[in-house]
């Protein structure tokens, strides 16, 4: 049997040294290639912590995280960083773009950081991505000159620049107005369908979750439900206004 893209085996995470707080209690699940998953749960349920573990930014207190069958706990910091850069893309709630750089430079940055040297092919690839997120005419602007929605679309393009197998998105639409949010969400869906990139989206928004293929719900550091979502056919902006959102 093929190894799943990402497998969590009984993962726990504690914080604090004198007063130990267990944030995650024995989490196990797998993410398969090309999946489109929502991670929901109330504030403080451990979503962000889980996301950081999945993104190999942090290490679990116990349990194993396997990326394509490889135990990430056995990797050194440097190897882990390289693996992260090449396999996983991030979209944060606050776009977290580098303000000193233009849109196209921001999109190139992960490739540049990985290979160490800029070339024309890299630039062409970044321009192609920006065209796909509809920012062909803005690519040489400083990212600080772009609107919130545009910035988030640049962030999506950046997350995809290394053609990762998995993109982790933390409230990618949380800071945007409905229209921009829908635009960004539609882009994620589009890349998922066209390139087979797996997505895991952390969200508060049940409407957004409902449009994913699978919904994992986290409460108090435990998975309370893991079910398939809606069919993704929602044309949500109007639906939401009609209050027709939900399961």
């Amino acid at each position, binding site marked *: 049997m093929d190894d799943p893209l990402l497998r969590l085996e009984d993962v726990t995470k504690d914080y604090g040294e004198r007063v130990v707080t267990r944030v995650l209690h024995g989490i196990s699940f797998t993410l398969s290639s090309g999946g489109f998953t929502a991670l929901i749960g109330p504030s403080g349920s451990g979503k*962000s912590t889980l996301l*950081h573990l999945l993104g190999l*930014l942090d290490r679990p207190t116990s349990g194993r995280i396997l990326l394509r069958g490889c135990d990430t706990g056995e990797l050194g910091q440097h190897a882990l960083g390289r693996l*992260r*850069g*090449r396999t996983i893309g991030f979209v944060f709630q606050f776009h*977290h773009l580098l303000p000193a750089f233009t849109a196209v430079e921001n999109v190139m940055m992960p490739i540049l*950081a990985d290979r*160490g040297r800029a070339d024309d092919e890299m630039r062409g690839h970044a321009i192609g991505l920006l065209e796909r997120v509809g920012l062909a005419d803005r690519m040489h602007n400083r990212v600080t000159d772009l609107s919130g929605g545009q910035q988030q679309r640049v962030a999506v393009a950046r997350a995809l620049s290394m053609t990762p197998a998995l993109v982790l998105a933390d409230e990618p639409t949380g800071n945007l107005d409905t229209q921009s949010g829908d635009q960004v969400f539609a882009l994620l869906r589009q890349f998922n369908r066209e390139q087979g990139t797996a997505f895991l989206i952390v969200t508060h928004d049940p409407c957004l979750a409902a449009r994913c293929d699978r919904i994992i719900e986290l409460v108090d550091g435990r998975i309370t439900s893991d079910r398939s979502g809606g069919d993704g056919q929602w044309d949500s902006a109007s639906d939401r206004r009609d209050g027709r959102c939900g399961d």
Partner: protein
Amino acid sequence: MPFEWIVAIRYLREGRAQSLLILAGVAVGVGIIVFLSALISGLQVSLIDRTLGTQAHIVLRRPDEMPRPLLERDGPVAVTAHVERPAQRLRSILQWQQVLDSVERMPGVVALTPTVTGSAFARQGTANRAVLIRGVDPAGFLRIIDVGSKITAGRFDITGTDAVVGSELAAALGLTVGDKIRLSAPDDRSEVFTIRGIFDIGNKDANERWVFVSLRSGQTLLDLIGGVSTIEVKVADIFSAESIAQRLSARTGLEADSWMKTNTQLLVGLRSQNTSSYMIQLFVIIAVALGIASVLVVSVVQKSREIGILKAMGTPTRRIIRVFLIEGALVGLVGSVLGVALGAGLSLFFASLAKNPDGSPTFPVDLNLALFLRASIIATITGVVAAAAPAHRAARLDPVEVIRYG
């Protein structure tokens, strides 16, 4: 262009006011180093030039006569004996022609000339002055001490019974070019000379006492027919004079005095001047380093979120470190280029402020490429070293913390 350079240059351009301030700081520091070095080495060069204007780099003469004790010094029996030191007569260097050949072959020696030097009296009417006869070969001697260019009247012509005297002596005896003067040496050897030139080499004692005559006249007057009392030597590198003197002494068995030995106080003075100059430079470098470090620390704090993002994207830690080291190096390099210009400008301005009557600057400055390169290299290395702490601070940033709370 490599990732590290792209990011470093962009960050420096981004932090305009900060970058400009720190560049100014480095420039002022480097400017002070350049100015101070130029001024001090300029003063030292002119001081040494003035000292060596009246003396040869190395003077070779016969060792003093000493009676040979008849008892073995290290013998088993201790004998107390009083050994009287004899009065030293003027004696010729033995086989000086061969000695001349052997000195000439010593590496580092660029010119040498045999001379006879001894005391005499100069008489003009009833006036009487003690003088130092310097019997020289004019062509050879002028290459050792350039009296030719210090002639104030007449010319340096000492053929036959012609002589050249110093300005003080000329004034004391009321001599002008063309006048006659009687030189009397011990044992009633005396001769009348015609003054052909008067020199002023900037040293009162020499101006008062030196009388140049031809080597042959000197030998006759001082009763050293066919002999020479000293061999004066010029070397290529003036600071190697002492070591060459020691080697010459070992090779020829003569006593060799270098200018460094006869001017110990001057050298001690120069050395302590150098030490204080280095101390000042050291503290300037430390101040510059602290300035660069503090600006970069602030920059790391300001950019901690961006650094966290770069790390989250998989940027290797060593690349992040290099970004800040390059920033430090660039600040040091660019600042030092500005500083060299500033220091050079300041030096030239200072040199132009005060001038001697002959038009040469009172405070001569010594600006050269080596100094500029040294200052730039020091500033660049200082920049890299100063950036080390901020760079490691950046490297230690945990992307999770930054993303969560940033």
